[in-house]
């Protein structure tokens, strides 16, 4: 079953390895499902079209190099620290944000 196609909003299309164990995470407070072995980037882009907005322009950001070189894929967590989404494996229950936490200036 193609999760991304059924979700509709995702940018990422799963073409193989779809029989992995499901993992649960939260994006902007909403519970979402991904698969064990997903990076944070894969998990978020399987349900959304971007990771965050650009800090310097009107456009959204969804990663660029996927190998830790461009740093385009940083994403916020509810508890503060940011993650490089392309090189961080998704963990059960991760709580991610597409914008800065409320107390960020």
């Amino acid at each position, binding site marked *: 079953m193609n999760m991304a196609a059924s979700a509709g909003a995702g940018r990422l299309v799963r073409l193989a390895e779809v029989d992995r164990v499901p993992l649960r995470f939260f994006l902007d407070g909403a519970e979402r499902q991904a698969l064990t072995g997903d990076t944070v980037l*894969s998990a978020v882009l399987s349900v959304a079209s971007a990771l965050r907005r650009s800090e310097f322009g009107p456009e959204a950001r969804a990663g660029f190099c996927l190998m*830790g*070189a461009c*740093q385009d894929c940083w994403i916020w967590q509810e508890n503060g620290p940011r993650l490089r989404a392309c090189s961080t494996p998704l963990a059960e229950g991760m709580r991610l944000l597409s914008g800065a936490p409320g107390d960020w200036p």
Partner: protein
Amino acid sequence: MSAGEKPRVVVVGAGPAGIRAAETLVAGGLTPVVIDEGERAGGQIYRRPPQGFTRSPETLYGSEAAKAVALHQTFDTLAAVGRIVHHARSSVVAIADGRLQVLDGAGSRWVPYDRLILATGAMDRVMPVPGWENAGVYGLGAMQIALKAQGAALGRCIVLAGSGPLLTLLAVQLLKAGGQVAAVLDTASMRQQLRGFSGLSARPLFALRGLMMRRRLAGIYHAGVRLDRIEADERGPVAVLWRDEAGRSQRTPCDAVGLGWHLRAETRLADLAGCDFAYDETWRQWLPKADAMGWAASGVYLAGDGLRILGADGAEIAGRLAAAACLQDLGLQAPDMAADRRRLARFGRFARGVAAAFPWPAETAAGLPDETVVCRCEGVTAGELRKTVDFGGGEVNRAKSLGRTGMGRCQGRYCELAAAEIVAGSAGYADAVAAGRLRGQAPVRPAPISALIQDAATGG
């Protein structure tokens, strides 16, 4: 190093070059430390999916499956018995006083070394296209990584554009995996591609494989293309506007775009390690200088695409050569490398053929509209960059200070080459070499302040 202690040799990077370097050092009686950003050794071209994925090596690596498996097994076996000390998911961010500053999930620490082998690989070389700042535009390498390491396509309807071997390879891989590729737009004309043919014939099998792949793209592959613009809405790309070889305007609808003009070497650590650089006319980029074995500076050796872009097979050879040179310099038994040196020379001829066949479209940079974003990190446009020339005299480090290209979080990795062409064009130079080279700065990856504070507190 005190008497009786083994010299500490650190290898940075666990791709084909790093793995073969480590293996050669082990054969010479050493226990190298290998520091790599990946979860599992293999590098980018032979990147492995996480544990638990089930596609076969043939599915993942095609005709190169046997080479990939051999490299992975070599590394895993040596690491399992403790002959290699492997630091995975670790980034070297600085080099000072014979020590490497390493960041991992736990924070920062300093790793001392007696000799250093840098096998840091390469990344997509990118020319800005108006609209490339939008979400859903990726490097070709990124699209290949998504497919290989995650079994995924980064869009439902993809346009691939640029030039180089990866353009054709990725298109075929995506189609084979069930992805949809709407167009493959090669900025190299067929005439240019034929011009590189004498060099390409240095590796006839490799060249033939490329031609066979091209046949599978009949109907969607276009040579001699000019890219005008990536049209986007707030979600991302909706079409690529381009002109065909006859100059006719074309529009290909899509929801994702892959861009790449072959590769650029990752050289930031070589810079921090004190290596000299020279502008390479073939590759149109600054590359570190090294001798035929890879010796680049006192105690520093370079191997793989971070030194010369020869691809995976060349990287394996270069890794062995660098380690052999290191062993020799340490007065240890080193293998005879004459045959490898001859093979590497042949790979060099092939690589020059590739560079001639799929050229970097330097002249495009000078013609980019002023509103084109050049620095994707901070949205600096070509027009803003051109304005710095009036104040800075056309030099890339001045352009960085004044216009911020190269100051963003990728530290110029994805804009530096195009920015140098634009600065050179505005200053009236004949060539980007006259605009100079961006100086490397530590940390070469963004480091959280907490790691640096911790480091200061522990006297690092």
